[in-house]
């Protein structure tokens, strides 16, 4: 069974600084996707960034980038130039694509609460 571990329950950062959120996962599958979701106080789940396991290049979306280390099964999220609006819970998630191309359930980590202060 796949597991996703986020070892940092809470993080804080000053506005304009950079912060890195950690995530590790365990799987025996060779083909899968990894995601970071943001959940602000409204509790809406918002996709931040996606990484395909077969791609070696790290995904980037504006101020958000990942460090994907497939051999180490590590998938960290870096937020550059942090803004007050980045304050939220961040979830790392795994989606396996099995032999039959049937991967349906997102497996989430426990989340990291990020607080950005001015």
């Amino acid at each position, binding site marked *: 069974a796949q597991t996703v571990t986020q070892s940092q329950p809470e993080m804080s950062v000053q506005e304009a600084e950079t912060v890195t959120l950690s995530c590790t996962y365990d799987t025996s599958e060779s083909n899968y*996707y990894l995601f970071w*979701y943001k959940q602000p106080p*409204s*509790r*809406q*789940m*918002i*996709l931040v960034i*996606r990484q395909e396991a077969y791609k070696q290049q790290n995904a980037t979306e504006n101020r958000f980038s990942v460090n994907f280390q497939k051999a180490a099964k590590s998938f960290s999220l870096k937020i550059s130039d942090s803004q007050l609006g980045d304050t939220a819970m961040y*979830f790392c*998630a795994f*989606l396996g*694509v099995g032999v039959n*191309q*049937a*991967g*349906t*359930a*997102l*497996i*989430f*980590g*426990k*989340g990291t609460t990020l607080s950005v202060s001015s």
Partner: protein
Amino acid sequence: EPEVTQTPSHQVTQMGQEVILRCVPISNHLYFYWYRQILGQKVEFLVSFYNNEISEKSEIFDDQFSVERPDGSNFTLKIRSTKLEDSAMYFCASSLKTSGLYNEQFFGPGTRLTVL
């Protein structure tokens, strides 16, 4: 931009009562999901649905739960006899495909269920 919608935003019910949570997935999506998040805990998968039948379900999704697509637009989650521990945020999601090059699951805003 198309989005997943859910109603109601907040549902309060008495223990033992039946509740139906409603979702309208994005119109051309084929796969539908329910997840739940107990307050302060991680998001957990409940069930996925494709072609009018359950595709996958977790061990949480026991006999008191059921899902249905009663018409071409709605996707519902029914909890037959609610328990206190069913209190949670319930998220509906939909995707074009379950796998492949682009398989983002788009989440709705959630329904907060409170069981008293």
